[in-house]
């Protein structure tokens, strides 16, 4: 068994954010952050991590908490997917996120993979992206030179595995405003298996309803474009009126024009278009059913 020798041989474990940026001195742009390692290590084995220095941020304890305050939920970037899935706060205030978390990978990888890592890796199939897009999350970051910034998640993904993060910028927290009724949401992941599957299509829907009228709709899809996306035209169609079967049917047609799936080993583009239509209908219907506990 050979270890992946391509790239550098330096390693730094850090216990605080200060140590991170101190450690990066002299290695600016030549360091790779490692959290859970569930993406980085396979990338290493594929020879795709050529950076000289690995910065192990997995022990940054202050970035591993979930809290609720001032009407928003805050998730430390190093919170594991397993923790997101089992968090009472998220199950109550953002159930589409805990639901999506429970579908990522398998129990073993969920114990290591982190929310920050899933977003920073920015696969178009990233499991945490659609629910966070549908809940209009904000990514808080820190940078070596100056202050950190707040990046709205719909400006975060640029293209496959490429994000708005600058060199050596690190996500510290992800926050989302608590939805008016967190139960009026639904998430679906279609994979070739029930576990250990990269999604063929994933869809998250959050609705804000006043009686039967939809005041706000947020619809996000994964694996159907070069990055996780919001379906703005679908949202427009849903907002401002009742959501009857005819409206839902229209949405399932509209979404086909908003996505640009490719054909890959998991599914053809045409299949993805068709199944997105079908699953969008079901997700909207499920979201409508949501009952506040």
């Amino acid at each position, binding site marked *: *068994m050979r*270890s*992946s*020798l391509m*790239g*550098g*041989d*330096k*390693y730094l*474990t850090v216990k605080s954010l200060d140590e991170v940026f101190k450690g990066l001195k002299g290695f600016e742009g030549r360091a790779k952050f*490692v959290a*859970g*390692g*569930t993406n980085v*290590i*396979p990338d*290493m*084995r594929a020879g795709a991590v050529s950076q000289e220095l*690995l910065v*192990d941020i*997995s022990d940054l304890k202050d970035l591993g908490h979930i809290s609720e305050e001032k009407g928003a939920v805050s998730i430390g970037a190093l919170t594991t997917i*397993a923790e997101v899935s089992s968090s009472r706060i998220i199950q109550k205030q953002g159930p589409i996120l805990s639901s999506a978390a429970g579908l990522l*990978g*398998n*129990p*073993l*990888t969920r*114990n*290591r993979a982190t929310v920050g890592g899933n977003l920073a890796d920015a696969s178009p199939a990233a499991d945490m992206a659609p629910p966070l897009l549908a809940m209009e999350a904000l990514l808080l970051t820190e940078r070596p030179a100056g202050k950190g910034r707040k990046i709205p998640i719909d400006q975060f993904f640029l293209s496959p595995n490429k994000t708005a993060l600058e060199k050596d910028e690190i996500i510290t927290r992800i926050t989302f405003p608590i939805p008016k009724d967190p139960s009026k949401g639904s998430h679906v992941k279609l994979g070739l298996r*029930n*576990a*250990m599957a990269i999604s063929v299509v994933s869809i998250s829907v959050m609705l804000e309803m006043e009686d039967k009228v939809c005041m706000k709709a947020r619809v996000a899809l994964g694996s159907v474009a070069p990055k996780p996306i919001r379906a703005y035209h679908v949202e427009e169609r849903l907002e401002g009126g009742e959501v009857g079967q005819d409206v839902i049917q229209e949405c399932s047609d509209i979404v086909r024009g908003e996505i640009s799936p490719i054909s890959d080993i998991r599914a053809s583009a045409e299949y993805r278009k068709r199944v997105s239509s079908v699953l969008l209908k079901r997700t909207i219907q499920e979201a409508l059913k949501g009952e506040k506990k």
Partner: protein
Amino acid sequence: MKTYVIEVKLNGEWKKAEVTARQTLLEVLRNKFGAKEVKNGCTKGDCGACAVILEGKAVNACLTLALQANGKEVETLKGIGTPENPHPLQVSFVEYGAVQCGFCTAGQIISAKTLLDNNSTPGRNEIRKAVSGNLCRCTGYTKIINAIEGAVLEAKS
């Protein structure tokens, strides 16, 4: 190549090893500590044969850098049961015929054990979800699920 010294508490015993930045916990366990009960199935986290318990959580050893286990506790199958004193899951796996070639078994038991540690009365679907990261090429899985269920029933009585 730069090397680092790590210390890992393996099945209750502190052990030292000299490692490189990119070596994984799996490599260290098998090649430096002789823990051959931890299997290398795919080296990329797709099969679960290398599952170990790191600080109380079941993880893929192949997806953990050796340096990430520095100063931490690792439990493998040998720490869970011995021939003289097997873990109830090990007994159950044998009784239910859940071991054919045996390659996936260590990982299956690690995943099953952490399930039972957190939930002593899981339903069949919870069991299936708990071992959903452990592939088996031989048994068709039914016997494995039965074995874990059997261990749960045995513990209840």
